[in-house]
């Protein structure tokens, strides 16, 4: 990749989220907490999920986190929280699938801004195979925490 292509990958939206991440910090109460790492680079994330709603119609009430990582992983986690907080688990998982498909699309998948909002800024990152994992670390932690929360909560009663 050329210097211009690399600089283009770092969309202003990504740098904005990186400099001022949304929803960061660990908050209570929560139903589940996970710690995930990217062993190749040492990036780490501690992430908590609080669920609400009713059985079968659970809602993501809060996602809070503390993460150490590159601009791509930090920004992707920030965007992820925007996309899932306040949404039903089902909707949020559908959004994840859309994001994942874009990230594994080698830059050839046309993202849907209505679904992914700021997440479309990561379309260019998909052209850099080594960075796809960075963009998915936060999502991976959120999915694990949500799956865990679903097994252990009485829906909204932390």
């Amino acid at each position, binding site marked *: *990749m050329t*210097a211009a292509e*690399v600089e283009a990958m*770092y969309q202003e939206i990504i740098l904005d989220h990186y400099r001022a991440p949304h929803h960061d910090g660990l908050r209570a109460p929560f139903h589940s907490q996970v710690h995930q790492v990217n062993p190749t*680079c*040492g990036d780490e994330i501690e992430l908590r999920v609080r669920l609400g709603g009713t059985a079968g119609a659970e809602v993501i009430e809060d996602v809070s986190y503390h993460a*150490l*990582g*590159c*601009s791509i992983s930090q920004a992707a986690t920030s965007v992820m929280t925007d996309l899932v907080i306040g949404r039903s688990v089902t909707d949020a998982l559908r959004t994840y699938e859309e994001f994942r498909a874009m990230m594994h699309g080698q830059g050839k998948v046309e993202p849907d801004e209505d679904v992914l909002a700021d997440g479309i800024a990561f379309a260019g990152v998909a052209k850099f195979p080594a960075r796809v994992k960075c963009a998915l670390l936060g999502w991976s932690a959120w999915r694990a925490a949500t799956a865990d929360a679903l097994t252990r909560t009485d829906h909204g009663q932390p």
Partner: protein
Amino acid sequence: MTTTSPSRPRTGSAEPLDVARLRADFPLLSRRLPGDVPLVYLDSANTSQKPQVVIDAIARHYREHNANVARAMHTVGAEATAAYEDARATVAGFIGAARADEVVFTKNASEALNLAAYTLTTGLGPGDEIVVTEMEHHSNLVPWQLACERTGARLRWFGLTDDGRLDLAAARRDGLVNEHTRVVSLAHVSNSLGTVNPVADIAAWAHAVGSRGAGATVVVDASQAVPQMPVDVASLGADLLAFTGHKLLGPTGVGVLWGRFDLLAALPPFLGGGEMIEIVRMSGSTFAPPPHRFEAGTPPIAQAVGLAAAIGYLQQVGMTAVAEHERQITGYALTALAEVPGLTVLGPTDNIDRGGAVSFSLADVHPHDVAQMLDGRGIAVRAGHHCARPVHERFGIQSTTRASFYLYTTTSEVDALVDGLLATERFFAR
């Protein structure tokens, strides 16, 4: 290569190597990358590039001499065996081994260190201690952790000073190496800090302790040392020493464990299989003497041949000259990097007892982002914790960017690195 930096004065005496001429021997170094920029390869501590003579030696082996070793009763089999055993002798000569059968071929340094950690600790138990350092590569840390879990022995380690050297004063004060110590295993040159450790002094200490009369066994991870400086196992005081071929201009897939012959002869087998046996019965087996006891299965034959060619190349260049070039280019880089705003070097900055790997942080730009930006300019560095997470933890840094140099590294490549870092710092600061 274009550079906007003013030319910097070189440190030290005259250039010990004709780097421009040497570079012509390495085909990959003339590659152009997307955007038609030249490759600036500053990742040799990760793996080195290969000169044409090594590529040719491997090709020639497969073209003309390929057969399995030691068990083929035919002409090419004899040739392959001779080439493989010649490679063993070449390695032995290169590191000052007393005899060729002190050289065990493994697949890499990690396997060599696992071999050491497994075989040296079979008789250990609670009350025994193994000593490593806080700057070890994971390959010289995890095998010992596993050995301690298996045996109940206790793992202890040399801590580090703030400037990235072993805290010898604290170790002496705490009696780190003592009559309970069975093994001391340490890096000769740190892959992350660049520190050259006083192996001979520590070996002397280790050999002087111990209730069993012989002191502790000293294992040296020389993966970063053997490529860049003359290494003599006898004067180092090591009992076992490990390194890998691919950082030494050789191919991947071949590593070396050197050991004092009497020590190797006393060690049990590590991996079982063909070639390492003497007599096999269903009721049990006896084992070949070293080195074959530790070389189960078909060994890395062509790779050993390639490694011997690499060593031949380095011997022709001269390891003293390689070491002096390494010292000069590292000094040049340390001076140049000091000009980059927000850059902090992890490890010694004084270029004394220092190898050619420089890890650093750049303001609060994450190393992955640094490496990505540099890659856009054709500059290859490593980003992460370089398989040495504890040392990063020691300095409170999650990860670093590492530039590492070899005999083919030029000052203009260091200038390109500095320009790339300045541009990266500006990009993320905007």
